[in-house]
């Protein structure tokens, strides 16, 4: 059985205080992203919105979902799907936008 340090991981309990801080950060980021959307940065709007969203998603995953305290295999299976998603989007993009006649 691959049993190592389960007990210690089982024991980890995040405090209410940590959660409240993370929540506050999420709210601040939400306000920022809504505010920024009213300002015209051109294409940078997309970049900023996605960067803020990813930051928020990271906070949710790391703290609310405890990813910060999980073992490496959980990390692998949390990140690998994102890599595949990236692959799906980029390669489909490459195909669609390098065609002689873009549909």
């Amino acid at each position, binding site marked *: 059985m691959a049993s190592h340090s389960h007990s210690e991981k*089982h024991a980890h309990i995040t405090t209410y205080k940590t959660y409240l801080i993370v929540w506050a950060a999420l*709210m601040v980021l939400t306000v920022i992203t809504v505010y920024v959307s009213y300002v015209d940065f051109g294409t940078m709007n997309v970049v900023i919105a996605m960067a803020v969203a990813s930051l928020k998603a990271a906070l949710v995953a790391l703290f*609310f979902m405890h990813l910060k305290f999980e073992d490496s295999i959980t990390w692998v299976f949390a990140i690998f799907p994102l890599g595949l998603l990236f692959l799906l989007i980029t390669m489909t993009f490459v195909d669609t936008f390098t065609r002689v006649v873009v549909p």
Partner: protein
Amino acid sequence: MAEADIEQPHGHHMDPATEYSSSKLGMWLFLGTEILLFGGLFAAYAIFHARFPEMFYEQHLELNRTMGAINTCVLIFSSLTMAMGVSAIKLGRQKTAAILILITIICGLTFGVIKYFEYSAKFSHHIYPDTSIFFSLYFLMTGLHMIHVFIGLGILAVVFVLTLKGKFDAKYNTPIEMGGLYWHLVDLIWIYLFPLLYLIG
């Protein structure tokens, strides 16, 4: 996925620690598949946004930013209460955990109600999934997300009842944690849907 009482004639076939870490790994794997299920829609969004930027810009203005923002706050708050609920049960506080899960459920329902008003507003303006590529994406992405909200609410309702019945304590609380993970994923996907649809269009 996370039942403790696997009916084996010779008792448990796994010790509790292995069972807990197995359930957790299994849940993370499942969340990975959910990401890729939405992945097709995200990919479609990326491609069509790049092809029809004007359409996306003009039509996203039709969405109600305020309602979207309120819903974002509602979901993030529900994620907070859910996370706190997991901590509460791990500290053995059954009642607190039950209350926090109940708040989570109420938030989820609120989210659904607000979404219902948004959808009906769209329908009354004769905007349907076949109106345009943008609205197809809007309805499919939020619709698929809504289905996940309902599934999450179903799971949380079961978990809530079991918590009230005192089935969980500081030692055994895997279903609460798994339900929580699923609920956070619902939140996580919305975190992307909100800016993509309501803000940058």
